[in-house]
């Protein structure tokens, strides 16, 4: 019985924690686009992108 008295509050706290994290994620649009991110890492860098990113990097340095 003593174990229950510890474990039950823990489950409730965990559930509340999960809900809190999820609310944060929803509020920060993490569920907006579930389809594009999975494709992104599979793409080769087209040369133009490289140059655009370089430009941005240069702009940051300056």
């Amino acid at each position, binding site marked *: *019985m003593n174990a*229950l008295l510890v474990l*039950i509050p823990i*489950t*409730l706290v965990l*559930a509340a924690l*999960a*809900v809190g994290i*999820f*609310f944060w994620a*929803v*509020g*920060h*649009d993490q*569920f*907006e*686009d579930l*389809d*594009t991110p999975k*494709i*992104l890492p599979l*793409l080769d*860098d*087209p040369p*133009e*992108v490289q140059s*655009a*990113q370089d*430009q*941005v*990097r240069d702009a*940051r340095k300056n």
Partner: protein
Amino acid sequence: MNIDPAVWSRPALVAEVLRRRRDGLAGIALRISALDQPLLALRLERVLQALPGVVRMSFDAAAQRVRLVVDDRKLDLPRLLAACAGAGCDARPLHRDSQDDGDRRLLNRSLQRLLVAGVFAMQAMMFALVLYLGARDTTAQLFRWLGMLSAAPVVGYAAWPFYRDALAGLRAGRPGIDVPVALAIGLIFMASTVNAMRGGGEVYFDSVSMFVFVLLLGRHLALRARVRHRALGEAVADAMPILAQRRRGDGTLEAAAAAELVPGDRVHVAEGAAVPCDGVLESRHARIDESLLTGESRACVRRRGEAVAAGSIALDAPLDLEITRDVAASATSMLAKLATAAHGLRDGAADADAPAARLFVWRVLALALATAAFWLWRDPARAFDATVAVLVVACPCAFGLASPAVRTRGMAVLARIGVLVVRPQALDALADVDRALIDKTGTLTEPALRVDDIETFRGTPRMEALAAAAALAQGSRHPLAQAVLRAADAVGIPHAADVQAVAGGGLRGCIGGRELRFGRAGFACAAAADDDVLWLADAEGPLARIPVVETLRPHATEAVAALRVAGIAPAIISGDAPGRVRDVAAQLGIDDWAARQSPEDKLARVRAEQAAGVRVLAIGDGSNDAAALAAADVAAVPSGGTDLARTHAGLALLRGLEDLPAARELAVRARAILLANRRWSLLWNLGAIPFAALGLVPPWLAALGMSASSLAVVLNTLRIREPQRATSLPASLRAGTA
């Protein structure tokens, strides 16, 4: 239109575009028509991700929009637009009102409720399991209380939409399905609470939480389907420019926000740009394209002093006008509002399963009452528990899930074969359609070039002319440009610099330092008369004359045959000349064709068919099809359709006609599975009620039955799969639709 991106740093324009957020960041919506080209879209995504100040972004390929959350202290609009242009995507900022945050907030709220219901329903089930396993005395009492504690957020917070809608329904005098649902949730929870407090009798905290969760899941799926595709219908509003060039008193131009313009202002509209507000023409005469407004795709000529409507596009030459109405009162805004209202009506009206469900739930409530009355008469001590058991067992969980699950699954599978469902009802309606009215140009046929027909001048080699034309056409999605590229397949294409597309004209660019123009005669060589011929010219005059012929699109014959097999009788309704329509109809074996059809004729034909009891599928891509598309039971628009046509589409065909037969097959299958789902879920509910009324269904059995029936519905829905012979989209296309 070449406007220096720097004008977008003007405060008046920035205020039109940026939507302030509570966290100090700003939201921006961009319209980027290149977004349906997956590789460009992905390249753009990477470029944007690398920009400092971009916090979040989301792509909506169907609506051709990118939404960004940016820190505007680190990133200003001109830099953002320059980055988009650098990625080869022409971006146009949209008015901040078009960021439709309302829909997204609604969706987020619904997702939050769904999760709360899910997490706490699991908790409640876990605690209930202890009771089912035979806990007794103090332990049982503890777990009853814990069950109540877990169910409280579900019933008190997550189920809120049911109470709200039930109240709204009662107030409006039209109680819907939410009234009995809210009643059942409230009654079961209260009865269980009473039992938990008095320490005897059954508690149903797990069942009621799961009931709420499953119903919320159904609601959420339906809402997501509606919201995700609504933005597509806003193309008309998107087409309104928010930037204008105002003429100062001394005749010089300044950039101004369209919303700042007041009647009396004089405005300059560049070649190929849209008119920002209604006004009267000050230039001597102008050729404009009003297709967005009227569906008329031919250019109209306006003279000085005549009215020009907002949203029309200046062809050939820039024009000047004096504003007569401000943006809000202009014709296009009114039209967009009307269209939105019309769609709202149509979308709201069709929730097919509502009447059946309402009837069912009211009957259940009546049965529960009858049970209570019976036990009060026979054995009052058992009345309470038996009545609650009836309510629990009869909850139409699986029933509520049936329709949203089938729709969501059907839309996902259709997207995989290249058919996007824009309006969720289109999926249901497609199963009933028995006649297809097909537009010819752009749907059944496409333009093509025959290399041998190319006529060259001033000694230009034929292949060199073709290669130059292809170089200019490379970036364009216009059907004629695509035809040139197909014809130039085997030719080495040179590099063209500074390529610009001029609306209603053609393409302009530099090859090897020489400026070339390619397009309609009036645009390319300024002199010759317009006909069905493309011209390539340099500064000195025409270089080549490239006639265009019409060929059937690939797979058109198979698609038409397959439609016929599927029980849909095809007919060609075209605005083109009778000779050409007859040829195409003969090639496809279609007897039913009509030529020289105006938009009104097409609409009348749709209405006539419908009056005769025929369900009509309209397929077309042009603005002149828009009226017919709007009136048809299902409207399908192939890729490359105009904005106005897309606005009225129920289905967007990413490849073309060839995917329609498979889509129809899928729709029929989805319908069959939906009906089966409904039948079985009702059968379970009705079958269990008598046992519950006799007090023979313990809580664990009720919970088990409820989850089993919901699970059965979901598993059955997964039987909607791609038809065997349908070809999946190539990966390159799939990336953009996903």
